[in-house]
């Protein structure tokens, strides 16, 4: 039995193995805000053991005392209470309030979200209706009205507020559960005979916990803010020190002792700001929001210092690619090459197949010709000559004149390349007008002609259809019509038939072959399928690990592959001779 090499991606491995706290430790924002929050919590809960002044003990000797007194280090308030002791006690109040609020919100929201998202549509509808109702309650007003019920205890108030917060969690959880329960691993768990509770706990909750944790960090901040706000309004027991009541008292004394107002405001502001920033850092760590590590400097094409390189002038050559190198920034700050020096020449009217397995760099090579690489891609060197200019150094304005006019493009997923909210005809007219500058009427005539040309039986109907009303094969015909509208010299087709059924694939390849003859198109066909290559390509370039390992006439490559890699690929093809010959074990035994 063959064992594949365990060549796991080192980047992926790093992020998979490192526990959450370690990833957080690498993020300065998380470290700083986390440290500040820890210090505040510690000081709030341990401080009163060292600074034993009663936060509620009024002593008129210290009324509005200035900071610096040994008994009132931060001064006294208008009743002569110790501001330091009140700050410590208020911190405790805030944190307890925040935690009660978020724990209740999580208990209610997560449970209901799991049940509402996972179970049938009736349960789902009922829970959603209930939570929509809760969302319509005017939160703060309700808490004030319920004062007689809560008896002014801020903890009871926060339990109620937790329920009012729970729709936020419910909606997140329910959405995630609905998205996750369709995943195949949940189906696999059901086939394995796991109970619903176990599937929910092990397979769904474990996968969706990230967004819940992040939302919780924000909700703690909200709950603290609301508790302080209520205390500011004077709702709740005055015996419990709170930032809100401190701010409110400081407010009345603003002109006399501005510091009385400032102390609680600063602490409260610091706590909520840190919670929000820490929540953001948590999200980055949990949801893989990668920081930009590549740095702008490495984006500069290394080849720009070589303007003296002569333009390759091979006879009949349409496109000349020389030593093309493309890389992507890795998490350790280096740039990892994915295309490592690709060379090839494409003649006018020629069909070249760029073949390779996933990760071979074939699509990257094709996209670099259109200059449509992802933003983080780095061109490390080389040149792509088309019509006498180096596309890699061409400005975006020059590229707009080339892309869609001189070089057309056919994508792999036809549906995702059509805008679902516009009719097919309108989209084609727009692109025809953009590339040729004709008026609307002429553009429409042109589009109808093209739709007929690409083999659409009822062009008028397709012209008026929205993309979701046509089939995948039809959509690919539409995109081909758009790509050849401006009579380009070169067509780049990236796996144009991979998403299609074989019967449709055969028709699309027929169409491409016809168009190529009519328009004298050159085509670069990126594919992993040797059958497609055999059907349409005159020449083949086989790619592996970012390099072209073999190039030649199609027939030669199939009959006499030069490289060992091509040989191994061809050997892996299941051709018509590989029919299963052995009989089922049970039948074979019976015969013996």
């Amino acid at each position, binding site marked *: 039995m063959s064992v594949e090499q365990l060549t796991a991606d080192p980047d992926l491995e790093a992020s998979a193995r490192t526990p959450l706290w370690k990833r957080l430790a690498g993020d300065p924002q998380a470290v700083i805000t986390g440290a500040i929050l820890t210090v505040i919590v510690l000081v709030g809960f341990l401080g009163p053991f060292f600074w034993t002044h009663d936060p509620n003990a009024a002593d008129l000797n210290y009324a509005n005392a200035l900071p610096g007194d040994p008994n009132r280090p931060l001064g006294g308030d208008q009743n002569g209470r110790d501001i330091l002791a009140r700050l410590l006690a208020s911190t405790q109040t805030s944190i307890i309030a925040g935690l009660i609020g978020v724990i209740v919100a999580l208990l209610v929201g997560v449970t209901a979200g799991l049940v509402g998202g996972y179970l049938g549509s009736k349960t789902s509808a009922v829970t959603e209706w209930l939570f929509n109702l809760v969302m319509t309650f005017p939160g703060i007003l309700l808490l004030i009205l319920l004062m007689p019920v809560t008896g002014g205890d801020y903890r009871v108030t926060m339990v109620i507020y937790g329920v009012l917060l729970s729709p936020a969690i419910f909606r997140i959880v329910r959405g995630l559960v609905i998205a996750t329960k369709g995943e195949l691993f949940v*189906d696999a768990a059901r086939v394995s005979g796991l109970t619903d509770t176990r599937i929910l706990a092990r397979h769904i909750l474990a996968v969706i916990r990230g967004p819940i944790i992040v939302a919780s960090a924000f909700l703690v901040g909200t709950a603290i803010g609301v508790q302080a706000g209520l205390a500011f309004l004077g709702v709740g027991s005055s015996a419990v020190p709170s930032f809100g009541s401190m701010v409110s008292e400081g407010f009345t004394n603003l002109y006399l002792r501005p510091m009385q107002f400032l102390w609680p405001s600063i602490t409260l502001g610091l706590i909520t700001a840190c919670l929000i920033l820490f929540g953001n850092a948590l999200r980055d760590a949990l949801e893989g929001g990668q920081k930009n590590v590549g740095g702008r400097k490495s984006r500069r094409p290394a080849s720009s210092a070589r303007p003296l390189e002569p333009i390759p002038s091979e006879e009949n050559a349409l496109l000349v690619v020389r030593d093309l190198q493309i890389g992507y920034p890795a998490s350790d700050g280096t740039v990892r090459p994915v295309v490592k020096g690709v060379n090839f020449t494409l003649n006018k009217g020629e069909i070249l197949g760029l073949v390779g397995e996933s990760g071979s760099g074939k699509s990257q090579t094709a996209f670099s010709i259109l200059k449509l690489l992802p933003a983080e891609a780095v061109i490390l060197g080389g040149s792509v000559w088309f019509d006498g200019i180096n596309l890699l150094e061409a400005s975006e304005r020059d590229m707009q004149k080339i892309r869609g006019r001189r070089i057309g493009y056919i994508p792999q997923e036809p549906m995702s390349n059509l805008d679902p909210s516009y009719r097919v005809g309108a989209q084609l007219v727009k692109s025809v007008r953009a590339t040729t500058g004709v008026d609307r009427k002429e553009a429409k005539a042109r589009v109808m002609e093209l739709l007929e040309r690409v083999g659409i039986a009822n062009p008028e109907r397709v012209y008026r259809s929205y993309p979701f009303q046509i089939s995948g094969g039809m959509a690919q015909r539409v995109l081909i019509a758009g790509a050849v509208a401006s009579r380009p010299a070169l067509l780049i087709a990236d796996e144009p038939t991979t998403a299609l059924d074989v019967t449709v694939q055969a028709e699309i390849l027929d169409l491409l072959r016809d168009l190529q003859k009519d328009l004298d198109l050159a085509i670069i066909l990126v594919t992993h399928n040797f059958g497609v290559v055999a*059907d349409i390509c005159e020449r083949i370039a086989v790619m592996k690990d970012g390099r072209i390992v073999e190039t030649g006439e199609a027939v030669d490559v199939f009959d006499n592959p030069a490289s060992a890699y091509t040989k191994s690929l061809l050997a892996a093809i299941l051709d018509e001779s590989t029919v299963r010959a052995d009989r089922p074990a049970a039948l074979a035994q019976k015969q013996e």
Partner: protein
Amino acid sequence: MNPLLQVNNLHVAYPSKKFFKPALEIIHGVSLDLAPGETLGIVGESGSGKTTIGRAVLGLAPVTKGSIEFEGKDISHAGKAERRKIARDLQVVFQDPYSSLNPAMAVGDILSEPLVTLGATRADARRRVRTLLDQVGLPHDAADRLPREFSGGQRQRVAIARALGPKPRLIVCDEPVSALDLSTQALVLELLLDIQRETGVAYLFISHDLAVVRHISHRVAVVYRGEIVETGPAEDVTLKPEHPYTQRLLLAAPIPHPVQQERRRAERLRLREQQREQHEQTAVGLSRA
């Protein structure tokens, strides 16, 4: 010999989400059977309903009519408890090795969880996981790693190991190699063949690719628009098909050689003309009648 799986006149329909709209029937009366240790290939294009047949057998699609007998018992409307019992003998390998493994669980847990559910002790399950990893050609340290550390082919090996865990008698393989690269595809097919020869498990092998189905199946059924249009020994159906649709399917699949493919292309265009003429003739005949 009694068949392991016998499907009779199966109909599957999904209830409509809108009021006053009839349910959408995907499968219109499919019958098939499968002997122990046998592979039945189910081939068809997207939307043909081939995947739905597999999901109905697994209890993941609503059966509206007909029966699915597994080991002599009708399981078409099995409840949760009954399904749990069947799970020991009936397993699945899905197409997409990326979404079929829980990204938050280590491979060892993915493999041992179903075993523990079926009543194995933790220690037994751990031992079995090691055997399973051996069986699918993965190193033992794979158990401590997360799915995302593996390539597509390796993940599919994990999915196969999970299916093999309870020593099932039937595995529904839903396009198990379609998402894999060519060379990986060949290795995974070889693995499935080896396992079948060793363990005598039967496969219901669903695929859109005639070449893959021909390679692994003893018998093949061709599904077109929710019905089986042709069924028979793999060699007959995939090389000398009788039904016009299967013929189209076969000739549309390109041969990986330029010269042979040119010949096949000509053959396909000829067949297309021929079928069009026949179609027109029957249309004319019907209008006359």
